[in-house]
């Protein structure tokens, strides 16, 4: 635990930011992760300049603990009469002198709130203002705040335990007595394996239940969506149907995948950390951040296709997005959020329901669509055609799909066993995003059909502003000595268990049960083991 405090003088513009500078040096010396430093410093500087602009004097006190940075800024300024108004972007009471310097844009308080995990503002008019904010150092705390995009319906759970066995990060538990899956959010990578395994529908992506009014809005769909309606119904029919529904514009994700692929290959030509891993699949990115932090430097520094496609586009209330997995949904929700956004992210099935009646009537009209489109494809080289030829001919690019294969390949990379690969394209789902369990058509079939598809959309790869950061999901304790003690306790306990990994206790493996007991996770004990209790 380390504390520091700084005096701030009101009106002393020459020294505005001095406290934040000093704080930054302290955080760097302690070795706080760069992303947390950045967020803390943005918030601290805004708070500091607020005191300089509005108050006579103030004080900033900072406490740096093992898991978080707490900052408290007190001032004796005039106070804020209407806090809700002060929190609005663009609202400012700064004097003209401050505005001339570029301050007083009404972004300060919103900026602090955006940059921190917890934000409390108290103010008494005529006495002063106290602002407190916290930045979490544990990445998983942030991930948990964002939610993992899963919806659990306990009443549907049949207790089959299939989900436990397929989860690649052992993030699921089905505790006795509750008879419903629970997710350890800090371990979940949003890969949708459990959704694929769940036959009863107890596990699903949480998403809007009703299609938002399409009138005059634009729609973003995964390209795979165009190939969900059988052989007789080609992409043109589906596009037409979407327009008939009322969408003003229909955009596809395919070209954005292609743009990212090109950018990643270009990046690989200069990168020293080989193989370069494409961030095309967000579940894979999550997996790397959690389980393979040493490979974070291999990730190409771009946004995933859906993040890139929505970056400058999905303005408030103007667009509807189809997310084909919880990872995509979580990424969309992490964007500077508007309240309506959640209702504007829909699962493919919901849209398919609406499209089906419209295209079914015309079934057969495009019966020879495959050959027709091939001709079109020849005249206008399409992103999809390029995709397949490039991937198959380009040397040193390895595409791997399916989470189990992905994990094995990443292990090989970590052990330095893949020097012959320059670019890795990894997807959690089989056949990439075509294999999302949220899509109805078989991945191999829809991907085959998509090879002749066309998409004229312009797309580009977008550099990330925030770096990838390690998630502390697997760490047993912040303190290494304690972590080691816990590890040996887990191993001791593990030896008393049968090692059958039957999952009947509600944890996926005997190891996981031992870990749960030692870490004191949700009500469980060693007596949950059926084999032990039978004896």
């Amino acid at each position, binding site marked *: 635990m380390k504390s520091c405090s700084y005096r701030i003088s009101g009106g002393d*513009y*020459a020294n*505005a*930011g001095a406290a*934040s*500078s000093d704080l*930054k040096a302290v955080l760097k010396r302690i070795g706080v992760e760069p992303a947390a430093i*950045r967020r803390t*410093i*943005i918030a601290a*500087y*805004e708070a500091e*300049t607020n005191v300089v602009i509005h108050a006579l004097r103030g004080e900033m006190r900072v406490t740096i603990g093992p898991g978080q940075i707490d900052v408290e800024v007190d001032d004796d300024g005039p106070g804020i009469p209407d806090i809700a108004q002060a929190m609005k972007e663009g609202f400012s009471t700064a004097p003209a002198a401050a505005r001339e*310097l*570029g*301050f007083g*844009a009404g*972004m*300060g308080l919103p*900026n602090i709130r955006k940059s921190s995990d917890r934000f409390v503002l108290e103010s008494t008019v005529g006495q002063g203002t106290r602002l407190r904010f916290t930045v979490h150092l544990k990445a998983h705390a942030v991930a948990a705040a964002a939610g993992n995009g899963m919806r659990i319906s306990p009443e549907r759970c049949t207790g089959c335990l299939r989900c436990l066995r397929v989860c690649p990060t052992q993030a699921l538990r089905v505790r006795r007595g509750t008879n419903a899956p629970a997710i350890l959010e800090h371990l979940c990578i949003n890969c949708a394996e459990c959704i694929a395994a769940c036959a009863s529908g107890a596990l699903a992506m949480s998403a809007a239940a009703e299609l938002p009014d399409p009138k005059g809005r634009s729609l973003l769909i995964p390209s795979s969506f165009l190939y969900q309606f059988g052989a007789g119904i080609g992409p043109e029919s589906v596009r037409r149907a979407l327009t008939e529904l009322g969408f003003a514009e229909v955009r596809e994700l395919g070209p954005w995948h292609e743009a990212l692929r*090109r950018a990643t290959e*270009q*990046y690989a*030509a*200069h990168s020293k950390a080989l193989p370069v891993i494409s961030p095309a699949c967000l579940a894979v990115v999550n997996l790397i951040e959690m389980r393979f932090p040493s490979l974070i430097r291999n990730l190409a520094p771009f946004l995933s296709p859906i993040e890139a496609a929505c970056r400058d586009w999905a303005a408030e209330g103007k667009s509807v997005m189809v997310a084909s997995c919880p990872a995509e949904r979580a990424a969309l929700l992490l964007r500077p959020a508007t309240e309506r956004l959640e209702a504007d992210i829909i699962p493919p099935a919901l849209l398919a329901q609406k499209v089906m009646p419209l295209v079914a009537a015309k079934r057969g009209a495009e019966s020879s669509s495959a050959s027709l489109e091939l001709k079109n494809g020849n005249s206008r080289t399409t992103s999809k055609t390029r995709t397949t030829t490039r991937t198959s001919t380009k040397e040193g690019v390895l595409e791997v799909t399916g989470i189990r294969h992905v994990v094995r390949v990443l292990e090989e990379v970590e052990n330095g066993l893949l020097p012959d690969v320059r670019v890795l394209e990894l997807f959690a789902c089989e056949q990439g995003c075509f294999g999302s369990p949220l899509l109805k058509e078989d991945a191999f079939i829809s991907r085959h059909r998509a090879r002749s598809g066309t998409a004229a959309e312009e797309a580009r790869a977008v*550099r990330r*502003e925030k770096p990838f950061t390690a998630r502390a999901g697997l760490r047993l304790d912040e303190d290494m000595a304690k972590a080691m003690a816990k590890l040996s306790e887990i191993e001791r306990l593990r030896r008393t268990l049968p090692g059958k990994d039957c999952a009947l206790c509600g944890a996926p493996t005997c190891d996981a049960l031992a870990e749960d007991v030692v870490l004191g996770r949700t009500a469980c004990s060693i007596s949950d083991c059926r084999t032990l209790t039978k004896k």
Partner: protein
Amino acid sequence: MKLSELADKLGAQIVANVERADEAQVERFHVSDRISDLLNSGSDETLLVTGLVNMHLARVAELMDAPGICLLDGIAPDAPLLEAALRRGIVLMISESGREETAGLLRACLLEELCEEAD
């Protein structure tokens, strides 16, 4: 792209820390006249472009690890800004052209570099 190369192509004059302009690299730029914007968008790969001229720019660049600042319309920095930039090792350059033109040139330069990397 190296800041020195960028300044060359932009026809901008480097007035502080010329010697660092050869090592400092940027991959993007951000144009704004609001300190909060510059703070939010600053990074160790970002050139801050602004019509503001005051010493707080150097502070923001330092806090966000931004390697350089580009001023607009040929307006020279005042003494406090120049001194603050020198002290903190931040490359300071002056573009003769205005906001839109400078932004256009910067965009073209950085894109061109991306394309060259591709070839």
